[in-house]
């Protein structure tokens, strides 16, 4: 054995496990004695920020999580939402930030693997994936290496597993220089009556280990995910895990086959803190004890200690409670797929978590306390400060509007992401109706004539930085808008809250305010949060001990339902001579816009605010217009404002536009990022009827022009060939990635 279980527990050892003195005192109290070394590992894994949500739990509880459509909200491996006809959609988003910074390919790959497992553990076949990525400044020496590795890793895993990647986000900002974010989303479809959860039921039933063998991968990984980065990063390297998408694909097929036999009572994937977390969770949720015999665990390395086996984060593994009479049948399925199947323990009635290894009981702990009594902190927090309004006249207009627009559409945050998503299989399964690059990814519901699901993920970190509450609202609202613009009814959302060190009151304040904004928006827009993930301590520590936090980044992903995909909307289908309508009013808000950042080189002022009633009202109007068949194309207005949205629509449709808009402050009207606005193109013959509809429902609108020609023309301000816009839009990413290889480390 590499580490003796009788090793004395020193203060240093406790600290190395990321436990505070108070926490340790509580552990001794709950254990009833000093913990053994293995027990210390188990406590630390369960009480880790990553598993216990000890800093965020209090606030997460305030999020709206219920609704008639919600079958299972937070607390399960993934959220489950009813889509009618006996079908449910199962989805979640999760971060793999730190591992991806250390080893971009494998970090991103195993992130995708983990989220796919969360979805199929519940009995759903994954049908769509997205990835939200934030990197440092493009000119930072590490950025290109990280982009290249992360994108290859996301693709490497998802493509081989066989799930279409239908959307995502990529942002660049210097505040991610030392801490990139890799948030992966997956969704699957299942029958409502065939959902599996982790709550064990029944005493004396076999606990079965499924999937790949256990190695020393990522021992201490969950601890790492919650620690700030510092110079000792090199020593943490061996904790990187390698993904095996092939094994995961076999595991998917084997699990779905297994579930069909009725052999599964409860099932849980082994994610962070592997065997420990999954076993404790199954027992604690079911009010049962668990006894494990580690000598039965399939291992791929010699001399593994109990500690290592309990904390290993080897990928592609599951734990389940089996109906014993179906053991032979269950086993034969796993043999068919060449996967391990081993009975490694049983459920008990004594509410103890008892772990045996080489004739020794290496742990015996109260399972409920392990699972449920993790400390919960009400960390001090500071209400974020408010910026005073910055009216448009405070912002310099561009010297050349055409140049400004060209610059914007070719800037790092707005340039086409085709370089990224061409590395992802977007078509596999044959159900993809809208690829990345549109408003939302759209996938047909297999076996259903007309139904489809739309997916989007969004957050604008620069807004959240300026105003965490408005920024949180805006993330939900933009997601809502993207789904609406595809013709989908938003159903529910998942969140991935990426923040800095919560022990700092100002960071905790960002988290608290963002959650409150998210909650408010989800409530108003009827998009309950059904699953999520929190990633804290995203900071790089400096020599003097201070830390630089990332931009606060609460990513939101949501799913919408399209009842009839013949009536969905796209942004690339506008036709020559279609009239263009703006739903919403003239823009005036330039603070925190991309115009401010890219053209004026500054980031200041308040974020644009979202009026949730207006958001909902306009959203419902746009949806009804799409469903009424009026919209030949539709696009929401977001980063870069009206001019960029028009340019995107023209580029996608391959047609120019001639527009006349009302302008009080031209640069604000063109580039302002006021919220809750859409562009809709309408066949010329229906414009009067459409305008009458707008008036009838008293939504603010204006007819701003027509799709025609091969140039984008707006008043006397913009007159640019679509070809030039396309050139700028499409060349930035490949040029950036093909540029001179910088020394990566």
């Amino acid at each position, binding site marked *: 054995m590499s580490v003796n279980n009788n090793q004395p527990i020193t203060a240093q050892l406790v600290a190395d496990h990321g436990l505070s003195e108070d926490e340790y005192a509580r552990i001794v109290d709950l254990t009833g004695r000093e913990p053994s070394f293995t027990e210390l590992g188990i406590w630390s894994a369960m009480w880790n920020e990553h598993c216990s949500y000890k800093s965020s739990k209090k606030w997460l509880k305030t999020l709206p999580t219920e609704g008639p459509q919600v079958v299972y909200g937070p607390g399960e491996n993934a959220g489950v939402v009813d889509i009618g006809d006996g079908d449910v959609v199962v989805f979640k988003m999760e971060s793999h930030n730190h591992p991806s910074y250390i080893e971009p390919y494998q970090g991103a790959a195993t992130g995708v693997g983990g989220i796919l497992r969360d979805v199929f553990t519940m009995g759903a076949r994954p049908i769509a994936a997205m990835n939200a990525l934030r990197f440092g400044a493009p000119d930072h020496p590490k950025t290109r290496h990280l982009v290249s590795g992360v994108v290859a890793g996301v693709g490497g895993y998802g493509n081989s597993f066989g799930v279409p990647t239908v959307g995502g986000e990529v942002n660049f900002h210097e505040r991610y220089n030392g801490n990139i974010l890799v948030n992966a989303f997956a969704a699957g479809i299942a029958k409502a009556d065939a959902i599996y959860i982790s709550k064990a039921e029944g005493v004396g039933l076999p606990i079965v280990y499924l999937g790949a063998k256990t190695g020393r991968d990522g021992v201490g990984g969950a601890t790492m995910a919650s620690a700030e980065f510092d110079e000792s990063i090199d020593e943490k390297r*061996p904790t990187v895990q*390698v993904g095996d998408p*092939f094994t995961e694909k076999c595991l998917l097929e084997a699990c779905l086959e297994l579930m069909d036999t009725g052999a599964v009572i409860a099932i849980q994937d082994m994610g962070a803190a592997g065997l420990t977390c999954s076993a404790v969770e199954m027992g604690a949720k079911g009010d049962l004890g668990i006894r494990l015999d580690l000598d039965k665990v399939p291992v791929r390395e010699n001399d593994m200690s109990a500690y290592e086996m309990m904390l290993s984060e*080897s990928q592609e593994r599951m734990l389940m409670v089996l109906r014993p009479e179906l053991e032979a049948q269950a086993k034969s399925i796993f043999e068919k797929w060449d996967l391990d199947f081993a009975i490694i323990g049983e459920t008990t009635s004594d509410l103890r978590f008892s772990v045996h290894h080489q004739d020794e009981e290496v742990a015996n702990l109260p399972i409920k306390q392990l699972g449920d009594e993790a400390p919960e902190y009400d960390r001090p927090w500071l209400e974020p400060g408010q910026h005073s309004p910055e009216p448009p006249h405070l912002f310099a207009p561009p010297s050349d509007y055409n140049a400004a627009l060209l610059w914007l559409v070719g800037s790092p945050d707005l340039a086409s992401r085709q370089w990224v998503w061409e590395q992802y299989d977007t078509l596999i399964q044959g159900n993809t109706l809208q690829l990345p690059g549109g408003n939302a990814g759209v996938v047909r519901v297999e076996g259903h004539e007309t139904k489809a699901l739309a997916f989007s993920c969004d957050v604008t970190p620069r807004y959240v930085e300026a105003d965490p509450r408005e920024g949180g609202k805006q993330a939900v609202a933009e997601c809502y808008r993207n789904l609406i613009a595809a013709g989908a009814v938003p159903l529910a959302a998942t969140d991935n809250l990426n923040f800095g060190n919560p022990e700092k009151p100002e960071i905790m304040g960002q988290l608290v305010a963002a959650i409150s904004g998210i909650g408010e928006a989800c409530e108003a827009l009827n998009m309950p949060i059904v699953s999520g993930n929190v990633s804290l301590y995203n900071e790089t520590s400096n020599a003097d001990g201070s830390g630089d936090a990332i931009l606060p980044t609460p990513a939101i992903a949501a799913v919408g339902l399209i009842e009839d995909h013949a009536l969905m909307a796209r942004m690339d289908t506008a036709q020559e001579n279609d009239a263009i309508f703006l739903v919403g009013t003239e823009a005036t808000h330039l603070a925190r816009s991309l115009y401010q950042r890219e053209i004026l080189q500054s980031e200041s002022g308040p974020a644009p605010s979202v009026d949730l009633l207006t958001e909902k009202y306009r959203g419902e109007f746009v949806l009804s217009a799409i469903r009424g068949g009026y919209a030949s194309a539709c696009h929401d207005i977001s980063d870069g404002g009206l001019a960029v949205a028009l340019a995107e629509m023209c580029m996608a449709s391959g047609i120019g536009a001639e527009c006349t808009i009302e302008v009080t402050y031209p640069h604000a009207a063109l580039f302002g990022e006021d919220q809750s606005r859409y562009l809709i193109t309408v066949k010329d013959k229906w414009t009067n009827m459409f305008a009458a509809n707008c008036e009838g429902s008293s939504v603010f609108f204006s007819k701003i022009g027509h799709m025609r020609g091969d140039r984008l023309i707006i008043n006397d301000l913009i007159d640019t060939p679509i070809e030039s816009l396309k050139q700028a839009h499409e060349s930035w990413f490949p040029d950036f990635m093909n540029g001179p290889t910088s020394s990566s480390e």
Partner: protein
Amino acid sequence: MAAKSFSARVTVTLKRGVLDPQGKATQSALGSLGFEGVGSVRQGKIFDVELTASSKKGAKEALESMCEKLLANTVIEDYDVVVE
């Protein structure tokens, strides 16, 4: 100093303990093909590099630096350089 030509082989292998799905798949395929007695297979990479350098030592140093910067992923891989 005049530059000379050298042939070198760089061998990159996975660090001990790192999962090797390639090796695993290959091992089990060998088993299915009826090869017996194969205890383990670990897969690695080689780079055969032709380069000019002022000396053998210089060539080796350059190659080591290439490994650190590009050829090996030192988070999960070890490397070895042999200059002929």
